[in-house]
């Protein structure tokens, strides 16, 4: 019934969909297997993509030729560029999305991708021959063969849902959990553990009083996520979010449910994310705070369903309901469904290689929550990389690994593989040592060419990058050559309280001033607009960032060079650490378990001292 595939992707969430897309676009024959084909690419939690660090990741996925950026652009109902007041490395795109449109757009894009087959069934086990995986076995008993398998199980592996004292199996509310894979892999020698996450209640928009809340509108300009140029939504039509707050009365009501809380009563064993606490956790840990912010987020264009961001809870549903009704604007609120907590299996990611292939089983790849991460963007980028590497593996091609200085994706995977994680891992910009280089405005300049050479990013993308590069250079040259006379610019400088010029100065120098932007010069100084008017806004912004922040960008580039020397020293797979008697015991254990790929990675493993790395280097030979 089934042909032999190059790659089978198990699960069709953000990781699974990107994995199927990248492997298929590279030319692999792909099967996407999932329990329910009606729920692919679900936004199981909040209906939003991007945000700080996460927005940068979507831009990187897009630059590599993944789909998340396009899908987000096509299904957004609101766009904001966060952190505009900070330096450009912090600018972070974020969108509210139409949940159903998001899912439908993903399915449509995958259906239009050659080489992707679909099949609805639950995978119960994988087929293992020796130390290689060579297919999957489904609940219906189908054996499907492939040279690689990518597991993207999300919260479905042995998922248990908690609402107050009730608990039941499930991978998402109203969806069955999956069993079998964890047990089989543990039997084979894998280590697995439990994590926990949660989601807030959904309510009926018609039951809320928005006049009592603060409105949060979208930006006037929609930058979007994809570097491909297509029509964005009309900014005037964006949907607003609203802000309200809990109060002491709400907190008192919530406390009445603490004796039934699965978290406080110890029924939940999995570790939850510290930065994504439930409302009961917030009032418990920060009892001095009299209110907590809630975001009222619409779930789409054509629905009244509302996501109550900030009110994640696993207290009994009637406690959630009563408490929420004491929030200003929620007095008459009607529930669509209560919040809940969910526990699920993950496999500590130190068991993976940088390709996301498991060390124990050749051809078996993991991506997303199974690796201990949280977030759509974190999952999607792992899916992308697992898809690429599963393809490379099945075609006997070189692995593709992004460095920490290439992309947030590189930081994320290297962190997972080198340090592991004990709570759901989320990306923060502070995790990247080269934050100034890894910006949302230059992901295409960083990654598209690499992906194009692989055969993933399209010609159209590559052409756009080349044009952007050359135009940016032209603008930089123009800025260096354009001398602005005092009489032309001084009235403007006066108006913004900036020191006036006494003699003419190059435009490139003037835009180094902190309160002068190139955009404002374009609008106010005729000679600037005359020489730059033919360029796109995107290129002008790019040139400005490169000129204005050159000192910092160069500083980080030097650090990259410094670090890269260690990154280029590869440790052979066969290296025998036991021979190195001088290593500290802790380092020895960690090296043997994690098997660092390079000396650079070895130096980042927690508990490893510089001296351990030096000793290693000497023994390693080159």
């Amino acid at each position, binding site marked *: 019934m089934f042909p032999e595939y190059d790659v089978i992707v198990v699960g069709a969430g953000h990781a699974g969909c990107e994995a199927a897309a990248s492997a298929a676009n590279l030319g692999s024959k792909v099967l996407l297997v999932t329990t329910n084909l009606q729920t692919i690419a679900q936004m199981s939690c909040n209906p939003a993509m991007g945000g700080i660090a996460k927005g940068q990741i979507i831009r990187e996925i897009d630059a590599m030729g993944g789909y998340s950026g396009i899908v987000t652009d096509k299904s957004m109902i609101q766009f904001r560029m966060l952190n505009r007041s900070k330096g450009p490395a912090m600018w972070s795109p974020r969108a509210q999305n139409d949940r159903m449109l998001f899912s439908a757009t993903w399915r449509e894009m995958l259906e239009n991708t050659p080489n992707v087959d679909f099949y609805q069934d639950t995978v119960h086990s994988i087929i293992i021959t020796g130390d290689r995986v060579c297919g999957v076995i489904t609940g219906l008993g189908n054996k499907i063969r492939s040279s690689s398998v990518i597991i993207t199980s999300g919260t479905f592996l042995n998922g248990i849902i908690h609402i107050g004292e009730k608990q039941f199996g499930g991978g998402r509310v109203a969806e069955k959990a999956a069993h079998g894979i964890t047990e089989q892999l543990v039997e084979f020698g894998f280590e697995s553990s439990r994590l926990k996450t949660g989601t807030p209640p959904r309510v009926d928009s018609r039951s809320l009083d928005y006049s009592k809340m603060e409105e949060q509108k979208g930006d006037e300009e929609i930058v979007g996520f994809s570097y491909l140029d297509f029509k964005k939504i009309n900014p005037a039509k964006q949907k607003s979010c609203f802000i309200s707050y809990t109060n002491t009365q709400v907190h008192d009501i919530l406390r009445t449910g603490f004796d039934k809380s699965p978290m406080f009563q110890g029924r939940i064993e999995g570790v939850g994310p*510290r930065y994504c606490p439930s409302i009961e956790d917030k009032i418990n840990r920060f009892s001095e705070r009299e209110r907590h912010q809630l975001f009222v987020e619409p779930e789409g264009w054509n629905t009244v369903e509302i996501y109550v961001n900030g009110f994640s809870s696993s207290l009994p549903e009637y406690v959630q309901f009563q408490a929420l009704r004491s929030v200003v604007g929620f007095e008459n609120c009607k529930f669509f469904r209560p919040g809940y907590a969910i526990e699920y299996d993950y496999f500590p990611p130190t068991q993976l290689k940088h390709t996301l292939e498991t060390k124990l089983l050749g051809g078996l790849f993991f991506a997303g929550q199974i690796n201990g991460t949280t977030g759509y963007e974190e999952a999607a980028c792992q899916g992308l990389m697992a898809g690429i590497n599963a393809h490379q593996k099945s075609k006997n091609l070189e692995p593709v690994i992004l460095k920490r200085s290439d992309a947030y994706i590189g930081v994320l995977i290297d962190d997972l593989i080198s340090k592991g994680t004990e709570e759901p891992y989320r990306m923060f910009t502070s995790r990247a040592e080269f934050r100034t280089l890894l910006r949302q405005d230059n992901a295409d300049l960083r990654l598209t060419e690499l992906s194009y050479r692989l055969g993933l990013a399209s010609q159209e993308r590559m052409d756009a990058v080349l044009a952007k590069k050359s135009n940016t250079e032209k603008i930089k040259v123009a800025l260096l050559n354009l001398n602005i006379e005092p009489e032309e610019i001084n009235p403007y400088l006066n108006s913004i309280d900036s020191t006036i010029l006494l003699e003419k100065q190059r435009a490139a120098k003037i835009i180094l001033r902190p309160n002068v932007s190139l955009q404002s010069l374009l609008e106010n100084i005729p000679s600037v607009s005359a020489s730059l008017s033919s360029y796109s806004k995107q290129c002008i912004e790019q040139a400005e960032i490169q000129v204005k922040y050159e000192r910092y960008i160069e500083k980080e580039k030097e650090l990259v060079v410094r670090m890269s020397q260690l990154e280029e020293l590869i440790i052979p797979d066969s290296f025998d650490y036991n021979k190195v*008697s001088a290593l500290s015991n802790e380092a020895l254990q960690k090296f043997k378990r994690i098997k660092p790929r390079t000396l650079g990675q070895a130096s980042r493993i927690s508990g490893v001292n510089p001296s351990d790395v030096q000793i290693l280097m000497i*023994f390693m030979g080159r």
Partner: protein
Amino acid sequence: MLGKLSNWDDTIVALSTPQGIGAIGVIRISGDKAIEVINEMFPSKNLQEQASHTLHVGFLKNGNEVLDEVVISLFKSPKSYTGENVIEISCHGSPFIQEKIIQAIISKGVRMAKAGEFTQRAFLKGKLDLTQAEAVADLIASNTEASKNAALKNMRGGFSNSLHQLREQLIQFSAMIELELDFSQEDVVFADRKKFQELISTLHQNTKRLLQSFALGNVIKNGVQVAIIGKPNAGKSTLLNTLLNENRAIVSEIAGTTRDTIEEILNIDGVLFRLIDTAGIRHHTKDSIENFGIERSLEKMHQADVVIYLFDVNEIDANELKKREDELIQNNITYLLAGNKMDLDESFSKEKFSSFHNIIFISAKNNSFIDQLKKSLVNVAVKGDLNTESIVITNTRHFEALQKLNIALQDVQKGLDENIPADLLALDIRQCLYYLGSITGEVTNEDQLDYIFSKFCIGK
């Protein structure tokens, strides 16, 4: 995180012989700038023009100050241990002199080498093959272990507390900046710039204080400061000469400029003693202690770690000595009473001073009981708990790291003054964390996140 291992395109320096006082010590410098830097300090010859594998004798100077008379071995890249330009300075075996030389070299932009770094470079430049490298690996391991122990020893007491405090403050500062960046959308109160100014100036002050504590307080770096005081004609000059003449072996006969800065260093049982105000004693200058009464020379005495109160046994009685001793005790001064000229009167008896404890009797002129004086000096000054060997080197590392931290903090301060965006400020703060991390252990992103999550209610 930033370059946990250092780059190897810069120039490094370290003491290559074991710590402590031997006849000579070898300081090794490796890197592109090795020859250039030492050439600046070596006026006798232009080293840049000399052939590889040659020896050169001369004075090593830091500006006008002569540091030591040394032998320089010159190895030009690639024919050297590390494959880079290498200079080995053979100097006198005093930790103080070695320390001064290393400090001077560091001040010219050379970095203190980490344990095993010369070997690491040799390996990277392909100068060592695997078998050779294996042989030195054990050595490196033991060095590392030793430096670990040394660091631990150094970390006892107040120094450790200050560093710990500094680390906490820096983590707090960086976490508050990161809070603004990663959690700008959260409903938390962000610190204003004034708060940052306060924090950074506290950090700056604490760093400077630590730096100064090296300059002033460290017995090993500066030696034990000794003042010889006493009435005119008690025999101070004679004692001084006797003590110094004993030590010609380690003190170069250097004429002129530096006589007063280096020469008055005594090495007794591996402990360095610096005799202060010796110029005053020798030249009977106007402001020498000699011309003050003991009351008026209190200031000088307070500078000293140990005071030798020298008196003429034939001139002073027990009552008067008791008065002097009481003054020393009142002023909380560590002292040694030394009765001189015991040879003048053959019937001299120690009996009349039998009520004193910290007392010895000598004849400076006849060199009698000078060894006993020295032994007493060591006992009084060191109280038997000084590990000279390890503290020197770790201090140099710490000193260097703190100096770099100090400079990096200035960058942060400048950024704050110019009101640059917080993410760029964070770039400079990461440098600070890196330098402090080299003393206190690495400060990771997790340390910052721990701080943020423990202090602020984050998350929707």
